């Protein structure tokens, strides 16, 4: 896999919501280049557009104006098939865990692996078990999400996002459901992945307890970048 120095390059990004008269601009001329292996935190009050920027960069939303180059692919005007293929190289951690309630912890993690094809192999099961062990759920492999606590569910979601060795991890308030210690553990894990494998992380958070782990903190307000600093 080719190593891109800057897996995310955002230039002149504008975005609008609504149609016709109700159309309202939400993102104004955002420029952002994120180097490989770094951990970037997007901050800002609610409604500042940080989540919109995150979904635009993660090709979950179509780019309307400006350019987003993700892993050397232009997202503005990208076809659905290209978007789907790119998403397989990414990992998403959602604020709500979004686990599948009918699948066990292990099966939920397998979802992150089977997307790469090759079916349900023993190697996948082993990788899923290992990943769940890393997030401290080695004893809960066959539990359904319904019988896991909020923090445990969030850790399964983290395992699902990381098990496929994504090149970029997008996370939206990943620590919200976790106590201070496990929240830090998760973010430290992401940071270690950045060091060891060059995994890039972009995280939206309000959690002040983890700011010291960031390589860079970008603050948005009313759809514009107002601050960009290194702690």
């Amino acid at each position, binding site marked *: 896999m080719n190593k891109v120095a800057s897996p995310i390059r955002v230039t002149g990004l504008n975005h609008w919501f609504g149609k016709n008269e109700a159309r309202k601009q939400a993102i104004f001329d955002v420029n952002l280049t994120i180097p490989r292996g770094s951990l970037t935190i997007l901050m800002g009050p609610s409604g500042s557009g940080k989540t919109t920027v995150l*979904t635009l960069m993660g090709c979950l939303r179509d780019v309307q104006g400006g350019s987003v180059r993700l892993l050397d692919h232009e997202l503005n005007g990208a076809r659905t098939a290209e978007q*789907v293929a790119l998403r*397989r190289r*990414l990992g998403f951690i959602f*604020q709500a865990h979004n686990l599948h309630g*009918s699948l066990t912890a292990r099966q939920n993690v397998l979802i992150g692996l089977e997307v790469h094809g090759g079916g349900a192999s023993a190697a996948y099961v082993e990788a899923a078990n290992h990943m769940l062990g890393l997030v401290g759920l080695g004893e809960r492999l066959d539990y359904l999400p319904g019988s896991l606590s909020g923090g445990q569910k969030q850790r399964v979601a983290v395992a699902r996002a990381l098990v496929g060795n994504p090149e970029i991890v997008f996370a939206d308030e990943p620590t919200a459901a976790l106590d201070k210690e496990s929240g830090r553990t998760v973010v430290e894990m992401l940071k270690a992945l950045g060091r060891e494998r060059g995994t890039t992380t972009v995280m939206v958070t309000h959690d002040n307890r983890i700011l010291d782990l960031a390589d860079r903190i970008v603050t948005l307000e009313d759809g514009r970048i107002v601050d960009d600093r290194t702690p």
Partner: protein
Amino acid sequence: MTRLLQRILGRLPVGWLQLTHSRGRLAAAIAGVSFANVLVLVQLGIAGALNGTIAQGYDLFRADILISAPDANTMTDGGNVARQHLWQALADPDVADGAALYIGTLTWSRTSGDTALQTFGIGPDKGDFLAPNLAPHAASLMRADTAVIDRMTRRLEPGLVATLSETTPLTFEGGGRTLSVTGAFTGGVGFSADGYMLVSDQTFLSLFPRRLSGAPNHLLIRLAPGADPAQVADRLRRDLGGDLRVRSMADAIAEDQQYQGTERPTGIIFGFGVVIGVLVGIVIVYQVLSTDVADHLREYATFKAVGYPHRYFISIILEEALILATLGFVPGIAIATGLYAALNTATGLPLVMTVDTALAVLAGTMAACALSGAIATRRLAAADPADLF
């Protein structure tokens, strides 16, 4: 089960896991599919019984070729055939023998109600034109006003039939004559008659005084050994002139079944019942699958964010559709088989569950479920991964 499906599908059987996760809904869905299956199977069973009863009338006779009037769409419908055609046909070197067959319906009034007997009249010397179980009775019909009766006749007490013989006949009045029933054979009840009765041609003509000996309903033809029935039929059709129907026995049965199945109200009603059953099944399965999709939109949106393509979700829904089809079929066919037996006991109609019917219904169920699933996938568009944040 999960492992087996995993091996078949080459992926986690997400559809199966979703279905089995909500047991109540799964049970309701299976009940719905079973119900549709029962509906279709019972209609098919009755339609099959219709075909069966059509064939059983012809099966009482043995002939290579049947000559009938142009409008004789069924065994009893249509006009008569002039008996002179029999002599013409016998002139053909490949025709070995022939017999005139007279058919009428005789009402046997009993204290328990009227019984309609489909009565066949044939020369008592033509025993070799009768089915093997009828042939031995031919000689006993030589005596005027004797008959043999179908022991499957509706409301005919088995005790009455068991003691029948030439010395201890059952007598009853019909057509203004006193008939002596000296024997019984196994025929079967039909949709239009309660049972069959066989008499000699002379007895037939006295039972039905308005019928003429020169105008039987059908002519039965036996060919010389080695003759090709199709060739002889073509030749007879040409030689006999007019537009007589000259067909092999098998063709006559097939044409009759085709006619009664598609042009008579009974046949059309059963066909309609099948269509209704299929529609009910499709609606039920669609309802279950589309609710299931709606309930899992968030999960599917997450899967889309993970990078699964559209066809993955279609395969999940089809997986669910086929599971429902299979699970619904098992109780469906069990219940239908029970109903066949119950209907058979109640009506005497020959309802038979054949492997062909069962397999056709299973295939139809799968196709209908897959169609429902395909319609339900349209709801997938609502799963938008951008809404997850």
